[in-house]
């Protein structure tokens, strides 16, 4: 309900907003979160729990909320698993629970069985019994949080980079003070202040009701901040509703800012980014991240309306809402009294149950008693009563005996409709630990505190267990002084001392509870993952000792919770069952992300066409006009095949291949990697990086080379052209260009700096048109008149400079199909022009453009390998039957050579490249199919497989164990055939050269 006479700075009661939650309409006000608006409307159930399907209500009021997960909107704006406590209300908002608490739920129906479903249940029942595959789908469909989105995200997300001297994380009292102290004491230091809430101030608003100095402090300091912000070239940036969720090396911090949720964008500027990911590099970081309250533990502590004390206080003070009329506060520290005082001042009935014995009370406690609040000291809550919603509690007197709590009296029952508990505070150390910093357990504050000293980082405020806000101001100033000192902005830092009882709020007595309580069922530690104290006990009984293992076995601290509310209690429970001090158990490892981050925000603008660069050759438009289908090869869009109307890929490839074999084809070969190699040691360099000889290659000639790495494995191949003695052009595979270039540079720069060799990548500088087929020479004679194309004057593996259609060109006679072929290299800008001229002049021979698919068929017919398809990084030249390319007498031991003599690379049962001919010529083996032995095990696999139009049969290349000595043997290849299922296809092992075995075609018809 919403309090009638409550005055709030955040709620604008003049502006009512309507919204829908779980298909029902409600009204809230501007300034509400979805959670506070629902409390105002007396909606208390938010979701069902993950494992048992229990109805759950709110526990917290911010990022720590484990239960109230909702999904917002539908379609392209659907966003799953947001916390209702963090969603700002807007008009027309529509949300549903991640798991509807009002519908019938299978998990809840089997309630009597829940006690048979402890930690490890799914593993023991299904996976160990090997029936997981049968039940997985149905189990997954009833478990889990919100459904995954199915439509394309309509919104845009931005990334913004920032550099700053100081980053302050957290905009409470500590953060505000630290930021101001830095700004005030320096003229140049830039400051970024990020805060996850909508308003700077953190928990200070809770003090407004009882402390007027808090109001004036907040007002004064906020206006000072704004003075720094609202000037030209401001040194201060403030990001609200922004969560620093990850801290990476070298002070690189990622912050997610929420501009709008769901459809609220529509009412604003539609093109604005819904969320912005700020990527911040900071010289110094001040962590003022505060602390999360942890709940007290007792039986059925997960009923709705059992909340955290500070959250109840925040809902009351900031939003003027409360979800009960008869409130019990329960805890082990003074914060419950502060909450009680605020509740009482709003004329709501409340009682305090303090586990600590009476005596030595602080001012706050005395103030509460003076107000007439009923206080029971030395009592613990054993159990909450009620079905789904809390109706009452069972309490019993307790006593500290030695270092352990014991129940001392009979239990009695109290009625209440809202129970707010506080088991102390957990400093938010997550971010500090992302780069490996450790926490330590501090006995005074009963908390895990951040590592004391870290380079370029200070912590201040309640993250270091400082409770009272005026002490926080002093602490933050002190820490900011240290930051200024580290930046060299001041010569000497001033350090003021804090009040004596600065640990107030943290004076939690030991936060263990009597073990009798922990041994009860349904004492939930982690609400989000339904982990109970008995799950931890079971894990320990089964032998788990490390908290990291206990966490994984029970799933404690998983999901969006990431150890915010549940983990520290879990550690305490484990310590109690193991009977060791907390410090010995330690914490689990904190890793990014601190809280949920939208995939959209991670991707930013790098979606769709911006996901990966797209490279086009200068001939691309012509391919588009010809109706080519494309395939992407190392970012290049290469024509795959050129279908004529009504043709499918098989018909098109069939036509293209036959044209090349019988008359004339043309192909855009511009994408091949090209590296310009210059310098007087170029020959020596090629000799070192290729396996074959290069010293005698004459200008005007080309040579095929195979490149290996030092392990002796093939990494690339291609033809290099000798322009003159000091100048070569190396070609690489299309996909390998960048890595080959980088590897070559490494050798030159790190090992062979004495060689006079310079490399330039010239892939984009040249366009290449390949003219292929028996009529290629006839066409070239038409296109170019200053080169002598006669067979004996321009031989295979030679090149000539000349003029093609008026354009200066290098014409190479090289072939990747076995046919007579010329590659015309021209300056890239002439690509389209030459392509069109070639197409026109080739008409008499029915010149046919062909794509990569036909190129693959044609090269496979000749047994030419494709590095990366027929080899996989574990193949030597011997394995692909290319021993002939290994020079024996080169003086320099070229890259990879020494490895060829290692015994393992010469064993007979290595995978070796062979051809496969299916007995049934029409069966085309799927690439990747396994060759099997008589026991059904794999002895190899198919790397390339096509139907050869010229041979009218299927051909394949395969890696087969010891294949080179298995020629003409019959092997079986296991394939899946449509409608017929698994089949074993008999194939004959053959040479991988299938067509023109003598190599007669390469000179053409004459």
């Amino acid at each position, binding site marked *: 309900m919403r309090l009638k006479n409550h005055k709030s700075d955040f709620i604008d009661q003049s502006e009512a907003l309507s919204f829908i939650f779980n298909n029902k309409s409600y009204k809230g006000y501007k300034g509400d979160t979805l959670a506070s608006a629902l409390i105002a409307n007396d909606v208390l159930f938010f979701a069902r729990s993950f494992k048992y399907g229990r109805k759950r209500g709110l526990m917290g009021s911010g990022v720590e909320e484990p239960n109230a997960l909702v999904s917002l909107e539908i379609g392209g704006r659907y966003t799953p698993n947001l916390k209702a406590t963090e969603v700002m209300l807007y008009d027309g908002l529509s949300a549903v629970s991640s798991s509807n608490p009002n519908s019938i739920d299978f998990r809840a129906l089997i309630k009597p069985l829940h006690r048979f479903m402890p930690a490890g249940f799914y593993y023991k029942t299904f996976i160990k019994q090997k029936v997981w595959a049968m039940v997985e789908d149905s189990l997954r469909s009833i478990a889990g949080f919100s459904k995954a989105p199915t439509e394309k995200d309509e919104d845009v997300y931005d990334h913004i980079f920032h550099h700053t001297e100081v980053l302050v994380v957290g905009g409470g009292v500590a953060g505000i003070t630290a930021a101001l102290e830095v700004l005030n004491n320096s003229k140049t230091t830039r400051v970024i202040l990020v805060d996850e809430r909508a308003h700077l101030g953190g928990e200070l608003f809770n003090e407004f009701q009882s402390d007027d100095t808090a109001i004036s402090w907040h007002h004064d300091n906020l206006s000072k901040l704004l003075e720094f912000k609202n000037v030209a070239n401001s040194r201060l940036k403030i990001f609200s509703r922004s969560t620093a969720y990850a801290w*990476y*090396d*070298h002070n*690189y911090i990622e912050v997610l800012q929420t501009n709008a949720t769901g459809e609220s964008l529509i009412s604003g500027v539609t093109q604005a980014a819904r969320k912005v990911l700020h990527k911040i*590099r900071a010289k110094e970081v001040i962590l003022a991240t505060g602390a999360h309250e942890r709940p007290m533990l007792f039986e059925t502590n997960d009923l709705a309306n059992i909340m955290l004390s500070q959250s109840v206080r925040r809902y009351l003070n900031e939003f003027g809402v409360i979800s009960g009329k008869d409130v019990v506060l329960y805890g082990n520290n003074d914060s419950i009294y502060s909450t009680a005082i605020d509740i009482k001042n709003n004329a709501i009935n409340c009682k305090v149950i303090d586990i600590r014995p009476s005596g030595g009370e602080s001012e706050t406690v005395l103030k509460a008693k003076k107000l007439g609040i009923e206080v029971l000291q030395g009592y613990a809550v054993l159990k909450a009563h009620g079905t789904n919603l809390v109706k009452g509690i069972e309490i019993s007197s307790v006593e500290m005996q030695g270092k352990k709590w014991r129940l001392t009296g009979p239990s009695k029952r109290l009625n209440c409709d809202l129970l707010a508990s506080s088991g102390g505070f957990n400093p938010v150390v997550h971010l500090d630990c992302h*780069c*490996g910093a450790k926490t330590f357990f501090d006995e005074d504050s009963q908390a895990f505190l951040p590592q004391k000293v870290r380079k370029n980082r200070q912590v201040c405020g309640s993250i270091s267990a400082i409770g009272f806000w005026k002490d926080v101001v002093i602490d933050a100033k002190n820490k900011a002084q240290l930051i200024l000192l580290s930046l060299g902005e001041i010569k000497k830092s001033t350090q003021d001392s804090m009040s004596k009882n600065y640990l107030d709020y943290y004076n939690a007595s030991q936060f263990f509870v009597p073990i009798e309580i922990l041994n009860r069922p349904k004492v939930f530690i982690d609400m989000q993952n339904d982990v109970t104290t008995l799950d931890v006990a079971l894990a320990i009984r089964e032998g788990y000792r490390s908290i990291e293992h206990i966490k994984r076995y029970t799933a404690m601290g998983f999901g969006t919770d990431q150890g915010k509310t549940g983990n520290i209690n879990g550690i305490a429970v484990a310590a109690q069952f193991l009977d060791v001090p907390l410090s010995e158990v330690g914490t689990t490892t904190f890793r990014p992300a601190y809280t949920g981050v939208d995939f959209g925000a991670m991707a930013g603008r790098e979606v769709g066409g911006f996901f990966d660069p797209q490279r086009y050759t200068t001939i691309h438009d012509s391919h588009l006009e010809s109706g080519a289908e494309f395939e992407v090869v190392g970012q290049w869009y290469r024509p795959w095949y050129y279908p004529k109307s009504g043709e499918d890929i098989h018909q098109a490839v069939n036509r293209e291949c036959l044209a090349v074999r019988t008359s004339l084809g043309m192909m855009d070969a511009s994408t091949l990697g090209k590296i310009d190699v210059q310098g007087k040691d170029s020959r020596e360099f090629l000799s070192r990086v290729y396996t074959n000889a290069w010293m005698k290659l004459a200008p005007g000639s080309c040579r095929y080379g195979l490149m290996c790495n*030092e*392990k002796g494995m093939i990494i690339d191949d291609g033809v290099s052209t000798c322009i003159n003695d000091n100048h070569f052009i190396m070609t690489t595979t299309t996909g390998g260009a960048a890595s080959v270039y*980088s590897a070559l*540079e*490494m050798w030159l*720069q*790190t*090992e062979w*700096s004495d060689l006079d060799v310079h490399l330039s990548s010239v892939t984009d500088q040249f366009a290449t048109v390949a003219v292929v087929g028996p009529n290629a020479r006839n066409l070239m004679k038409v296109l170019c008149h200053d080169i002598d194309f006669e067979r004996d004057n321009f031989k295979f593996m030679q090149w000539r400079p000349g003029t093609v259609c008026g354009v200066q060109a290098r014409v190479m006679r090289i072939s990747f199909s076995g046919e007579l072929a010329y590659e015309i290299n021209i300056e890239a800008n002439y690509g389209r022009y030459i392509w069109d001229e070639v197409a026109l002049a080739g008409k008499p021979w029915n010149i046919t453009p062909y794509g990569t698919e036909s190129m693959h068929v044609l090269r496979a017919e000749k047994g030419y390998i494709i590095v990366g398809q027929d080899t996989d990084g574990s193949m030597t030249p011997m394995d692909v039957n290319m021993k002939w390319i290994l020079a024996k007498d080169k003086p320099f*031991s070229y890259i990879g*050579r*020494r*490895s060829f003599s*290692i*015994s393992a690379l010469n064993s007979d049962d290595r995978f070796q490249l062979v051809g496969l001919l299916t007995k049934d010529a029409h069966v085309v083996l799927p690439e990747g199919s396994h060759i099997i032995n008589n026991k059904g095990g794999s002895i190899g696999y198919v790397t390339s497989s096509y139907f050869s139009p010229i041979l009218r049969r299927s051909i394949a290349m395969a890696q087969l164990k010891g294949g080179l000595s298995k020629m003409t043997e019959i092997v079986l290849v296991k394939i899946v055939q449509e409608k017929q299922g698994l089949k074993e296809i008999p194939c004959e092992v053959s040479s991988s050269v299938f067509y023109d075995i003598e190599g007669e075609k390469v000179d053409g018809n004459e």
Partner: protein
Amino acid sequence: MFLIVCPYCKESRDQNEFSPAGEAFIARPQNPEELSDDEWSDYVFYRTNHKGDHWEQWVHTNGCRKYFLVKRSTISHEILEVAAFGEVTSENPS
């Protein structure tokens, strides 16, 4: 995500611009053919995987494309020194 000062560009740049290129000061043997299989594998495969201050090679892939030396703590990831090849470094074995 490191910040690395390229010794050629003399600028502190984001790790995105660079690629790691393995442990530094592993020289290619002058006479591979005379080495035993063990000695050769030592050069090809074995690295110290040192915990602590470690010299390694990096390349300014999306910058000047130069390879250079980086001394980095593999514990804190702090970069302690950068050097061009041939520059004298604090622990250059040559």
